[in-house]
C-alpha cells in the first residue's frame, strides 16, 4: 500500500505538488469538487458549518472508533467542531493538519486524557467498538485499559525495562511471573526491541537511547493488547535513523492493530498510512484513502496542504 510520492515531506514546501499528480485529476467541475477553492476556509472564517468531505470507500470499512458529532471546548475556546469520522479497524489512519488545528486534542479525546485538563467540556460522543466512550456510566479507567497511547516525547518510567513493559498488567494486579515474562517478551518482540534488550531487562529504562525508549513505550502500549493504538507524532523527537526504525515498526504493527496516528510529516503519512484525515482549525475537512488524499484530493484546500502550499 506504501505509495511513494516524490515529495520530501511537508517541509519541502517549495517543491509543490508533482504536476504529474495534478494532471491526472479529471478536469475540474465546480459542483463535483464541492466548495470551490477557498470556500471551505471562507466558510470557516465566517464560522459557518460545512460538511466534511468523506470518501465513500471509508463507509465500507468496519470502524474501531466512531466519532459522532464531536465538539470540544477548552474553557470558552472551541477546539473541535462537529467532527464525525470512523476509524477503520486494522488500518493505520493518519491525522494531518497545520499546528494547532486540534489533532492532539482529537487523539486525546479518544482515551479521555483531556478529562484532566481544567475547563474542558465536550458534546457528542465517540464509540470504541460500539461502546460509548463519553457515556455517563463509562468507567474511564477500564476504557483507557482498552486503548494504547504513545506520546511525542518518549516517556519511560524510571523503572527497569521489564517493569515498564508490564506496567499495565502490574496496575491490574497481575502477579504471576510467568505471565508477566511472557507478555514482556511478546511486547518487546512486537516493538522490535527484544534482541537489543533481552539481556538487560532488569536495567533502568532510562539508559536506553531515545529511539529505543520510544520503541519501549510502544511495547508498553501494546502489552495489554489494546483495541486501538493512538500515536501522537511518535517520531518528532527522534533522529532520522530512529525515525526510520519506528516507521518500519508502525508498518509492521499495522495489520495487527488499529492505529490512529498524528503526524506533521506528509511523507510519513503518505508512506505508512492507509487513510488520511485532514483537519483545519478544529474541523475535519477531508478524509479518505491516503492515495486519494495525496494524489487526487477532492478539495483544493487539502491539495494545497498536502503539497505544502500552506501550513
Amino acid at each position, binding site marked *: 500500500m506504501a505509495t511513494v510520492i516524490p515529495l520530501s515531506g511537508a517541509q519541502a514546501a517549495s517543491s509543490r505538488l508533482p504536476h504529474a499528480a495534478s494532471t491526472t485529476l479529471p478536469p475540474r467541475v465546480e459542483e463535483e469538487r464541492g466548495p470551490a477553492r477557498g470556500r471551505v476556509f471562507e466558510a470557516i472564517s465566517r464560522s459557518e458549518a460545512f460538511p466534511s468531505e468523506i470518501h465513500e470507500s471509508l463507509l465500507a470499512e468496519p470502524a474501531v472508533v466512531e466519532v459522532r458529532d464531536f465538539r470540544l471546548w477548552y474553557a470558552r475556546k472551541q477546539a473541535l467542531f462537529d467532527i464525525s469520522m470512523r476509524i477503520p479497524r486494522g488500518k493505520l489512519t493518519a491525522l494531518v493538519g497545520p499546528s494547532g488545528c486540534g489533532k492532539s486534542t482529537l487523539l486525546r479525546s479518544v*482515551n479521555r*486524557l483531556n478529562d*484532566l485538563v*481544567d475547563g474542558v467540556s465536550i458534546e457528542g460522543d465517540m464509540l470504541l467498538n460500539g461502546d460509548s466512550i463519553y457515556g455517563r456510566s463509562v468507567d474511564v*479507567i*477500564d476504557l*483507557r*485499559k482498552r*486503548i*494504547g*497511547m504513545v*506520546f*511525542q*516525547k518518549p*516517556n519511560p*518510567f*524510571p*523503572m527497569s525495562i521489564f517493569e515498564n513493559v508490564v*506496567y*499495565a498488567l502490574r*496496575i*491490574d494486579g497481575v502477579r504471576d511471573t510467568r505471565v508477566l515474562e511472557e507478555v514482556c517478551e511478546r511486547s518487546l518482540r512486537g516493538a522490535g526491541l527484544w534482541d537489543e534488550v533481552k539481556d538487560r531487562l532488569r536495567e533502568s529504562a*532510562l539508559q536506553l537511547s531515545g529511539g529505543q525508549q520510544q520503541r519501549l*513505550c510502544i511495547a*508498553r*502500549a501494546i502489552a*495489554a493488547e489494546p483495541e486501538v493504538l493512538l500515536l501522537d507524532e511518535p517520531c518528532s523527537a527522534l533522529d532520522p535513523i530512529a525515525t526510520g526504525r519506528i516507521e518500519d515498526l508502525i508498518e509492521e504493527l499495522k495489520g495487527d492493530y488499529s492505529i490512529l496516528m498524528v503526524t506533521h510529516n506528509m511523507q510519513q503519512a503518505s508512506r505508512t498510512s492507509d487513510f488520511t484525515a485532514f483537519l483545519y482549525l478544529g474541523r475535519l475537512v477531508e478524509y479518505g484513502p491516503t492515495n486519494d488524499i495525496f494524489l487526487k484530493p477532492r478539495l483544493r484546500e487539502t491539495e494545497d496542504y498536502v503539497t505544502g502550499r500552506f501550513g
Partner: protein
Amino acid sequence: MALETATPPATDPAPAPARRRRTRVSGKGRAWDAIFAGLARGSTVLTLLILAALVAVLFESAVPSIRENGAKFLVSSEWRPNEREVQKRDAAGHLVMEDGEVATETLPAEFGALPVIWGTAASSLLALLFAVPIGFGAALFLVRICKPRLGGPLSFLIEFLAAVPSIAYGMWGLMVLAPLLQDHIEPFLRSVLDVPGLHWLFHETIQVGGESITRVLPLSGRDMLCGGLVLGIMILPIVTAISRDVLRAVPREQIEGSLALGATWWQSSWAMLRYSRAGLLGAVLLGLARAAGETMAVTMVIGNNNQIKASIFAPAQTMSSLLANEFAEATTELHRAALIEIALVLLLMSLAFNISARMLVTGGATKSGGRR
C-alpha cells in the same frame, strides 16, 4: 531558608554558553563580572569559614569531656552531672550496715549521652511518622487536585506556618495538646491497646529499695508522644512545601503515560512519588534535620527526663532540650564540656542530614531534568 533547595536546577546555566557570552561583553562589563564573581566566591568561602570556626570552637571547648569520657560518652546511659551520695547496697540489693548505720557511697559524676541521642532520634522519627504521610498527601492535593485559585493561598499559608516561631508551637503543645493527650487521648489509647503483647507500652519497671517493681505508667501528657507530635506539626510545612515543588516538577508525560495505561488516581500518584523519590527523600531528610535540631517546643512538651524507655507515653529528653535545661546551670567544667560535646554531635548530625538532603533534592532533579 531551606526552601530554595527545592527550586529545580533548570536555571543552572550551561557553562559553555556562559563563557562564550562573556568573551563578547565589553572590557568594563568583564571587570564587573570579575568583581561579582569574586564577591560571590568570597561569601561562599566566608560561610564555609564560619562553619569551620563553629566546629573548631565547639570541638575545643568539648576537649575536656572528650578526653575524660572517650567513647563511653556515646554509649553510656548514665547522666549524673554532679557526684552523688547514695545508700550502699550489696549484691543482693540489701542495704549495707556499718557501725549500726546505713553505709553510703559516693558515685562520681558521669556523662552518657545515649538517652538524649535516643530521645532525639525517637522523637524525630515519630515526627516523620506523622509529617511524611500527611505532607506527601497535602503535596499531592496541592499539585493534582486543588484549583490554582485555592492552591495559591494554601501554599502561602503553608509557607507561613514554616515561619511561625517554635516557641508558639511549644506553648500550644503545652497548653492544648498535652492536656488533651493526658485527659482524653492517652487514657483512651490505654483502654484500647493495653492488651497482651502491648503491656510494655503502658507499664514501667522501676527500682524501689533494691527491688524492681512493675507499675502502670503515669500518663502525663508531656512525653515522647507529645514531643513527636509537636515536632511533626512543626516540620509538616517544610515537608509539604518541598515535596509540592518536587512533585510539581514531574513531567506531564510521566503522569499521562501512566493514566493512558489505565492507572487509577492513586496508581498514577504513586508513579509520581516514585518518579521523584530522590527529591522526596530530600524533603524527608530536611524535615528530619529540622526535627533533630528543634529546641524550645520540645523542651516544653517532652517531659525532660533522661531515660531510655520503650514506651512513647514516657517522658524523655532530647539533645537540644538537655542543653536548654542544663547549660545555664552547669557549674563544673566537665559538665559544660559534656554539654558542648552534645552540641557538637548534634551539629555534625544535622550537617550530615542537610548535606545528604541537598544532594538528593538537587541531584534527583538534575537526573530527571537531564533526561528531557
